[in-house]
């Protein structure tokens, strides 16, 4: 490419390729566009987190001012939530895999799919413009009056960016719902669907029903802020609790948007690397839907100290316990699948085992926080920070990396260095524990979050957390190197089915042709027929146990 790029025909070809990519309606190429975009946002969010951890290594305002710190944690939250955690698995893995898994040539609305990417990029661009021109200091939650009367930051621009990201989410969710309903291969009944597809179906329902609430709420914040109409801000005669209700009506279900697709990845990987049928398929499918439905009923647990009525808090607390049930069902089913399986510890499986452990910790600490009396103590402390990072970084990011490694050979036709991959998985897991275990303790001791400075007695644990974060950062570099390296030079070809996995996506070539399948596949059995699956092909990079 480099040698030909200098000649006019080479430049011509370069622009032609770029144009083809930017106008593609192929879900696989759009998934790659999303992969690049989302990786960029992950890096930006990660750099901001790094600056914060450096600042927190010392108790005073050492590196950045308190004012700058407010902007850093706000942007870290905004970018990571809306431009990484929510879209990552659905738009990259879901986009790539759902048509393949259901034996379809594409998503139902290919042009809408491309449009969703452009809208997403536009939203991201607005947010980045807001960021470099000063950012926001409201936190990612935009509570009024931080976002109205007392805002000295780029609320309007950032809110527009998030609104566009939400529109993109709705496009994606709508597309997935119609695709899963209408484009399944002959014989692929609902209860033969891979669980990855089930989780994306549930996720799409949440995206479509929760995101518009966020969208309208943010528009109202914008109108209030820009015009001066009293909606949420008490100074203008508005109701700040109403904002919190709307915001969490979206943002609690959004947590399941972040985690459910990851659970789909886990179900696929765990079967493949223990060579077993998933235990309790229907339980997991129904639990997935139950999580999506219950997720809409628990938003008030974010408002225990907001002044909502005691009865409301009690009801929300009990409902929040209930959400733990379907989540626990899934964990038990995964463990039962592992039990007695021929377990192989390839890179995706290492990530998945990390996911199960950390998701359990995150879930159990979530139950702790859902307990009304305990939450009054732990609210807005590092315990909350540690809890949701355990679900998000320990859960969602691990699952995303598991999925990326698992389907990378399918997407690229190449195998990555297995030893590097495993090293990355171990580093990410260890780095995670070192970063966030101290934060659980800090929170329990009462250290409030979102403050740049802290008392001297928290110093040791904060330093430990910052040190752990550098291990975590290193951990993220390793898989990036392993995956990118596989694209260059003489990487090992993947073949159709390197892992010996079941599922339609493994029956076509790697990468698949533009139309996905040369002949329409027909499904005759369940998704996890591992007793009769082909044997995995060992990679050169490492031996299989």
């Amino acid at each position, binding site marked *: 490419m480099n040698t030909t790029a200098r000649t006019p025909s080479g430049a011509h070809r370069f622009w032609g390729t770029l144009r083809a990519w930017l106008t593609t309606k192929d879900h696989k190429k759009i998934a790659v566009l999303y992969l690049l975009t989302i990786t960029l946002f992950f890096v930006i969010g990660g750099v901001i987190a790094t600056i914060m951890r450096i600042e927190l290594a010392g108790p005073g305002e050492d590196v950045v001012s308190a004012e700058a710190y407010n902007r850093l944690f706000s942007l870290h939250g905004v970018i990571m939530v809306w431009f990484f955690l929510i879209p990552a698995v659905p738009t990259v893995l879901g986009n790539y895999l759902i048509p393949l898994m259901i034996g379809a040539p594409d998503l139902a609305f290919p042009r809408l799919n491309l449009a969703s990417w452009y809208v997403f990029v536009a939203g991201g661009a607005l947010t980045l413009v807001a960021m470099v021109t000063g950012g926001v200091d409201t936190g990612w939650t935009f509570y009024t009056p931080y976002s109205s009367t007392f805002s000295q930051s780029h609320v309007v621009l950032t809110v527009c960016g998030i609104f566009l990201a939400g529109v993109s989410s709705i496009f994606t969710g*709508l597309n997935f719902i119609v695709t899963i*309903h*209408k484009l399944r291969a002959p014989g692929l009944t609902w209860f033969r669907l891979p669980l990855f597809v089930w989780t994306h179906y549930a996720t799409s329902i949440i995206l479509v029903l*929760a995101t518009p609430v966020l969208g*309208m709420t943010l528009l*109202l914040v914008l109108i209030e802020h820009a015009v001066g109409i*009293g909606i949420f801000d008490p100074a*203008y005669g508005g109701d700040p609790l109403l904002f919190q209700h709307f915001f969490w009506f979206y943002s609690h279900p959004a947590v399941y948007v972040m985690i459910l697709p990851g659970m789909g990845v886990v179900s696929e990987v765990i079967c493949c690397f223990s060579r077993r049928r998933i235990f309790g398929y229907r339980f997991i499918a129904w639990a997935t839907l139950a999580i999506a439905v219950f997720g809409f009923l628990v938003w008030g647990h974010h408002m225990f100290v907001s002044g909502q009525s005691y009865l409301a808090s009690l009801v929300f607390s009990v409902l929040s316990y209930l959400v733990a049930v379907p989540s626990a069902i899934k964990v038990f089913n995964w463990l039962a699948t592992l039990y007695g399986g021929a377990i192989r510890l390839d890179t995706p499986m290492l990530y998945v085992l990390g996911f199960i452990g950390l998701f359990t910790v995150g879930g159990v600490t979530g139950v702790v926080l859902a307990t009304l009396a305990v939450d009054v103590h732990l609210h807005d402390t590092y315990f909350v920070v540690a809890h949701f990072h355990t679900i998000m970084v320990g859960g969602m990011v691990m699952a995303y990396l598991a999925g990326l490694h698992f389907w990378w050979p399918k997407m690229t036709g190449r195998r990555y260095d297995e030893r590097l991959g495993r090293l990355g998985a171990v580093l990410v897991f260890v780095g995670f524990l070192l970063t966030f275990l101290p934060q659980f303790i800090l929170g329990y001791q009462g250290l409030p979050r979102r403050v740049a400075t802290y008392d001297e007695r928290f110093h040791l644990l904060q330093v430990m957390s910052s040190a752990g974060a550098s291990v975590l950062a290193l951990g993220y570099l390793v898989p990036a190197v392993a995956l990118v390296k596989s694209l260059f030079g003489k990487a090992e070809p993947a073949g159709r089915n390197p892992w010996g996995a079941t599922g339609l996506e493994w029956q076509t070539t790697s990468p698949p042709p533009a139309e996905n399948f040369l002949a329409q596949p027909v499904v005759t059995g369940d998704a996890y027929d591992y007793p009769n699956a082909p044997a995995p092909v060992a990679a050169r990079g490492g031996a299989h146990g």
Partner: protein
Amino acid sequence: MAELHADARLVREPFTDVAHQRAAVSLGMWVFIAQEVLFFGVLFVWYGLFRAQHPDVVAAGGRALDVPLATVMTVTLLVSSFTMVLAVRSAMLGARRGLAGWLAATGLLAVAFLAMKAWEYHHHIAAGEVPVVDLHAASSVVEAGRAQFFGLYFVMTGFHALHVVGGVLVIAWRALAAARGRELPRWTAIMGLGLYWHLVDVVWLFVFPALYLAGHA
């Protein structure tokens, strides 16, 4: 009803035939409508809460609105839904001229609605019935009053009007395409447009009594 227009050229990737495409487009449109309901739902929750807390303010506000004009607007939208149905029918039968004509009629009615809306806005703004709160002029605590009601009024009718504008643009585009007659009318798309238009109509049917008829019981 005559036979459905089922030319193979109407079918887009990845669908196998017109019936398949129709089922997918209509499901997609219904999903879209579901999210619109949630989108407007936020406004109605805001409205409901405000009305529960300040019923007298809402009643007084409703009496300040122009009910006869709003009734004409309601009828206009209802008729436009009817012409839209005829447009969809023409598209399904492959009747290009009928489609162009009925779409044009729908678009004109929608523009008439917007014109009345604009006149109404102008009237209220000229009368000082605006929602903007001036923090420097008022005392430190703003009482719930006319400004809050007009906040509801402008925001709710404003978002509805934006949906009408979006509809008008698409209707005009499709009507021109049908009138020029270069391409066959893809009736699955017109059917989706029709569903959208009915949604816009239905939203108004909730906005109208909520705001205009409050205080007239």
